[in-house]
């Protein structure tokens, strides 16, 4: 099967790259997020059916699946972004380091500080580059300008954007290119110093060059952060993720090491999807 072989090739390339960088081994066994029997509803409509999954610390976990399969809903359930939507409700548990994030004593504001999020469409605020990155720490109470400057510099460096914007931090963020805007949004999410970074198709609106930069960035970031990424692009999942989960019609069909899922999927539906027979 040629498609399977090409995925194997991609995964292999990635492993080589990792060993070249003397990275940690691919598998990390510490569980960061533990989701048990999650059912999710938008009003009457059920979007997720009994999903249970663990997300490993300091690794990239990719969600794949056709449109409307619930992968974005699941991602947004992990930092309670669905709370904003009227009529959304759920049952089941989501544990972040063993703590139930939907518990009444958990403040959603501090949860979202720990679990940052980057969206499909880059959404820079209509402010300067500096103010965009400084927004998170600022609203969390950081008023000291020197401290803010340090956070901004550090975050932009981590997002591999510093060299491009260091001379024009006061320019409008809207003047940046699409790829730069997306990396700015990543820097902005990093500025609140999260443990987990959720990314909802972060590269789907970008050109190939910008996509590759964002992918490299994700690859770098997983040394310090737990990353969960939703993607439509299976090659992308194969290139950057350690774990891949396949969603279909609200069910989690299969979750495994990326290499295993793309080469020897256990379920027929997974195999059909990654070989392009549907979806």
């Amino acid at each position: 099967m040629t498609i399977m072989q090409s995925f194997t090739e991609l995964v292999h390339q990635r492993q080589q790259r990792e060993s070249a960088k003397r990275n940690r081994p691919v598998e990390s066994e510490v569980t960061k997020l533990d989701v048990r029997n999650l059912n999710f509803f938008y009003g009457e409509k059920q979007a997720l059916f009994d999903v249970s999954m663990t997300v490993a610390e300091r690794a990239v976990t990719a969600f794949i699946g056709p449109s409307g399969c619930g992968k974005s809903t699941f991602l947004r359930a992990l930092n309670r972004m669905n709370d904003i939507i009227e009529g959304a409700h759920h049952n089941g548990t989501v544990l972040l380091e063993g703590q139930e994030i939907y518990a009444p004593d958990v403040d959603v504001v501090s949860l979202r500080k720990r679990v940052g999020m980057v969206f499909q469409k880059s959404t820079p605020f209509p402010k300067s580059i500096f103010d965009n990155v400084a927004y998170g720490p600022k609203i969390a109470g950081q008023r000291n300008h020197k401290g803010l400057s340090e956070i901004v510099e550090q975050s932009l460096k981590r997002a591999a954007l510093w060299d491009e914007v260091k001379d024009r931090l006061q320019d409008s963020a809207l003047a940046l290119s699409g790829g730069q805007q997306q990396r700015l949004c990543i820097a902005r999410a990093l500025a609140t110093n999260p443990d987990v970074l959720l990314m909802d198709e972060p590269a789907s609106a970008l050109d190939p060059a910008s996509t590759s930069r964002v992918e490299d960035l994700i690859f770098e970031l997983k040394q310090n952060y737990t990353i969960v990424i939703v993607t439509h692009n299976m090659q992308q999942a194969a290139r950057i993720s350690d774990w891949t989960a396949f969603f279909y019609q609200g069910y989690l069909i299969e979750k495994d090491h990326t290499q295993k899922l793309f080469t020897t999927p256990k379920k027929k539906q997974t195999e059909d999807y990654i070989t392009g027979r549907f979806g």
Partner: protein
Amino acid sequence: MSVPTKLQEPHLARRHRIDKAFEWVCCGSTWFGVVVLGMLLLSVGWKALTWPPSKAKLPSSPVATVEATSSSAPLSTRFFSSYDSRKPREAGILAAIWGSLWLIVLVALFSVPIGVGSAVYLEEYANDGRLKRIIQVNLSNLAGVPSIVYALLGMTAFVKMFGFFTKDEGKSLVINLLFTTVDVPLPFDRTLISGALTLTLLVLPTVIVASQEALRAVPSSIRTASYALGATQWQTIRYQVIPAAMPGIMTGVILALSRAMGEAAPLMLIGALTYVAYTPGDITSVSDIFKNPHGLLDAPFDKFTALPLQIYQWINHPRAEYGHLAAAGIMVLLTILLLMNTVAIVIRHKFQKCTRW
């Protein structure tokens, strides 16, 4: 091929005629408004500038000559720096201009916080429900209620205060501020603050609806992104939504204020005076504010007149000279309104250019 073309030809010519006719009708409708406005401006402008008659035409008696030189045409500095007078040549709009200025400032002070506050509540906090729909429909209806109805409400609520305070007692509430005290008459009676509150009621629906539209135009991705960074709803509204909606809100507010500025009917009903020989708080220039800062606090509780009222009174005056004064007053009022609208357009244009999503 030729048969169907032939069949269609008579219809085609007719359709082209209708096309042309419709274009002319539309063009005519446009020019109707423009021409009438132009004529109005020309006639008013002409009237404003052509009085008094030039010296040469005056009788050559020495007294008359002296009088002619000391008086001046409407739209001279004299016109702006003197109060209304029984002698048309000495009459001016000082009281009216300061009255209108105070009205606008007070209306802005009242209507912006209340209007923007309601808009934020309706757009950002209130759940979509029956109550919100009822409020929404009523807001749109209120924007179309005639000003005279608001005037009646203002009369009852502010001028008379529902008759809770009988007038002969002459009650006044003394409010202690840190350094000074303010006498607030109860009821408000025919003072600036009554007028301003009435006009506030009048423009509030407009301000709310315009602000709501501005808030709705802020993309929800901005709000989502802010929440995702751990912002509370207040922080999201304060730091992202309101700044992004500000140009739209400002435009709506300025247009509403210019409407309030031109209203005469409500002020007439609540009984603003037409002959006033003082300015609110005795402030006739900016330097007066520094000389007597307490005037700023007294001004809202002074009796007043306003530009549209002054114009109305002059037009109804039997002496023909007052007609020229009225025309000059109209020119001043139109100029101010035009300036305000220009500012609104400039703000909208400027922010449209530098904000794209």
